[in-house]
């Protein structure tokens, strides 16, 4: 806040600042000065030319800041059209030809020091306020138009998203055949039994080969060069034997060398040479 001391010669503001700098040497001095100034302001409010802390967009009651009767009264704020400080019907005092060039008015000095600029003019403030309101209305109007379109589009997008999610859920939970890849093969019980019979038959071939070589049956499968795991060997006499294998459920599949079952007979040609009789 700058306090204006009415002086006849109206020296530059820098002189006031210099005087203040000479008077104020510490924070205590500054506080004392401010308190003194406030006390004087309360005692003589007419000595202050400028109302402090006036916002440019505040109410018009703050516009009356001049006590100089030579100043031109401001136009009514309610019905006056927007006009700048250079409007022809509002002659500006600083531009008056009768004003001395070396001694500008107190108002001009004050506004220049406070850097209030043209905002101190009620007309300018009204014009700026009207422009700001118009700009705000325009922005609202611009944003309001796509909002109306979006309101029309959103239900359609939501329905489409829901439909796509439903399709995805159906594909994930109950995929159609063209989505499912070929599942990995699994061994059936019949396939397991057939594999076990083939294994018993191959093991029997080892026993027969041993008998051909040594003219006798082996005492156990350990005497053979090759053996399959999980196969039991039981001798029944000097020429007959049984090989026993077990399925997963515990059922035994028996190969009897004296009377192989028809299931084994069907497997016999499995490893016959190609083209052999």
């Amino acid at each position, binding site marked *: 806040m700058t306090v204006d001391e009415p002086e006849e010669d109206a020296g530059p503001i820098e002189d006031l600042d210099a005087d203040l700098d000479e008077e104020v040497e510490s924070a205590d001095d500054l506080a004392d000065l401010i308190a003194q100034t406030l006390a004087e302001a309360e005692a003589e409010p007419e000595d202050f030319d400028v109302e402090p802390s006036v916002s440019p967009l505040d109410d018009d009651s703050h516009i009356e800041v001049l006590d100089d009767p030579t100043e031109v009264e401001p136009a009514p704020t309610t019905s006056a059209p927007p006009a700048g400080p250079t409007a022809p019907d509002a002659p500006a005092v600083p531009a008056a030809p009768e004003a001395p060039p070396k001694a500008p008015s107190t108002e001009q000095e004050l506004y220049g020091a406070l850097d209030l600029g043209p905002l101190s003019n009620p007309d300018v403030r009204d014009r700026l306020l009207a422009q700001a309101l118009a700009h705000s209305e325009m922005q609202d109007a611009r944003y309001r138009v796509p*909002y109306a379109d979006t309101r029309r589009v959103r239900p359609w997008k939501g329905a489409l998203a829901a439909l796509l999610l439903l399709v995805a859920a159906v594909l994930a939970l109950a995929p159609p055949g063209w989505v499912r890849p070929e*599942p990995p093969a699994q061994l059936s019980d019949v396939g397991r039994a057939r594999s076990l019979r083939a294994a018993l038959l191959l093991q029997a071939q080892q026993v027969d080969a041993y008998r051909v070589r040594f003219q006798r049956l082996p005492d156990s499968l350990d005497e053979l060069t090759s053996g399959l795991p999980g196969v039991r060997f039981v001798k029944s006499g000097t020429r007959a034997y049984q090989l026993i294998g077990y399925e997963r459920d515990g059922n035994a599949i028996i190969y009897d060398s004296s009377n192989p079952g028809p299931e084994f007979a069907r497997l016999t040609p499995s490893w016959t040479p190609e083209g052999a009789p």
Partner: protein
Amino acid sequence: MSSATRHSTRGVAVGDVLIFLATLSIAAALLYPAWSVRGFRASVELAISDVETLSAAARTVRGNENRWPTPVAPGESPPELSGLGADDGIFSRIEYTVGWTSWEVVDSVEAPRSTDLPAAGDAPQDSDGPVMEPVVRSVGAVTVHSGDEALLAELIGHYSDRASFVLDTMWVLVLAERAQPLVARR
């Protein structure tokens, strides 16, 4: 920004994001089943390729040396097939273990007739019917050991026209070749 503007922006963004996520979900639902079995199919194809490679190499040895390669433990390369025992070879798989073995089988073949046997009166001659005798021969076998039962089942299905079977965690493919008798005829 006014409330209407925020509402508009949020509505458009949510709708677009929902459609994007739904499209991603459909793509995932379509691609995941095939993607999930991609690794398994690759293992099956690799196993079949390894079996074919080992079978061809063993048959080559069988044709050149008139014998099958020496049986070895699973995961080891027979001496005759040392070229397949590289670090990244067929005997160094992670999903399964390839092995080589051989088995003996007995065939009944017709015995040659003896032409200098004396006639025994009115008794019928032995030459009236064929005389069969057992002949032992060797067959090779490729084994694949794996705890993945589906892999073994796939091998069974792929070689359904060949002599193969599954026992526990082992799949056996018997290589049937016309072989020379290993045991002299009686």
